[in-house]
């Protein structure tokens, strides 16, 4: 494996639902597959994009998550508490709270749809560095 490739796979990004959906819609699920070594999603995000009862069985993200279960990370250590504390604030939902908690505690960057100003602002408030899904793709 080339050195550059290895470095990219060691550096991980937490990613939320809207960023995943944007990448899949604009660049195709193949692009996600190429970066799967760099991606981490919470169990809640996996539910939202893949296992929610209203998500179609043929949904490309559903298949992507099912084929790549290693990208789904459960909460570790005190991330659960952090998740609940973030969730306590108005206007934030479970998916966003979960990825902000993971990114915050593990000091990882968060890939987000930056038009979602509430989630972006909340992440920054928790000291999480965010980047748009377009920027994330440029890092490859």
């Amino acid at each position, binding site marked *: 494996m080339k050195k550059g490739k290895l470095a990219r796979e060691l550096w991980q990004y937490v990613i*939320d*639902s*809207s960023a995943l*959906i*944007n990448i899949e819609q604009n660049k195709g699920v193949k692009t996600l597959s190429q970066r799967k070594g760099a991606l981490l999603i919470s169990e809640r995000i996996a539910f*939202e*994009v893949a296992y*929610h009862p*209203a*998500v179609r069985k043929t*949904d490309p993200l559903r298949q992507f998550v099912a084929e790549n279960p290693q990208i789904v990370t459960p*909460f570790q250590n005190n991330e*659960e*508490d952090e*998740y*609940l*504390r973030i*969730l*306590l604030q*108005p*206007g*934030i*939902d*479970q*998916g*966003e709270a979960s990825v902000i908690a993971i990114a915050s505690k593990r000091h990882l960057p968060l890939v987000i*749809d930056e*038009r*979602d*100003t*509430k*989630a972006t*602002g*909340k992440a920054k408030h928790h000291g999480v560095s965010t980047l748009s899904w377009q920027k994330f793709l440029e890092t490859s």
Partner: protein
Amino acid sequence: MTNKSELRESIIKGAQLRKARELLELAPEQVALELDITRQDILDWEEDRSQPRLKQLEKLAELYGRGIDYFLKETPPPPRKIEFRGMPGQSVKDLPQQAKAVLARFDELCRNALEVENLLNKKRKVTLTRFKESVPPKTVAESLRKRFGVDNKPLANLRERLEDEGFRIFELLIPDDAFSGFSFWHSEYGPCILLNAGDLKGRRNFTLAHELAHLLYGHESTLCYIPLKLSEVREDIEFKTNQFAVELLLSETGVKEDFRRRQLSITPSVEELGQMAGKWGASIQALGYRLENLDLIQRGYTDTLFETRPKFLRRSRTPKWKRQLGKEFVETTFEAYEKGLISGGKVANGLGITVREAMKEIEQRGHGQG
């Protein structure tokens, strides 16, 4: 399970866990069985003596039909002392679990709506006054028809009119049609009405008028099952609220004129009644009974149409989420998103749709198609 001493602070509110359970009239034993724990564990959580783990909390959220955040902060109390009307001898306890969960979903919708309005600094004003029980339904209905300026014409868009008056109205699918409508006047949410989204439009409108009567007469939280044959209604209160609904939706003078103009017989066909009911925004049953009471059609004729469940009552497709939630709630939710007050996921969660659907809607609105 985590002992309280192990926690830095109590994040999960035991009182919220109890409120959620009690609304559904679930015994601690039932919940314990679902989660494969003991009854004492449930009581300890509710008394803040210990806290559930996140996985257990998620199971509770699913069972109680709540978002996780419901258990983290004090929320307005859910409706209390729910009277189940129209099913003599039955109480909310007797409802199937899935039907009870709809009540929780309805309460969650009202809570979400209030939360979003607070973020937007929007205040609802309810100006409709309540009436004493002694005021006849006809008088109350006439005062409303006058207020809406409809004289003897059909009262179109009742739902929108009431939403403009500060009512919160949602339509949700009620499993097994276990009930037709539910209403309560909440100290913080204001007047709230839930309709069975699976009912046909005329029947939903009739239920809406029926529930409106409960609210205007100041009845406590009321869960109603309105039978297909209105002649089967035995309770005085239900009879009265049905009378109000008929008077509100079906103006005596207007209906008489319309009936004569249509030159219908004393035994009109279901199609003829259906067309006329559609114009008046009422159910076929309600129109039939109105016409019987006005001696325009044969007495008892309407019941004969409902001896068996007629074809026209069968629902055709799943109702659209926008219809179920109402324009006002949907618009307010997207307004809050556009102003950066709520996240995209919160939009999806509030509207009960997937994040993908929410993003599609946000995208369309961005292009002016919303």
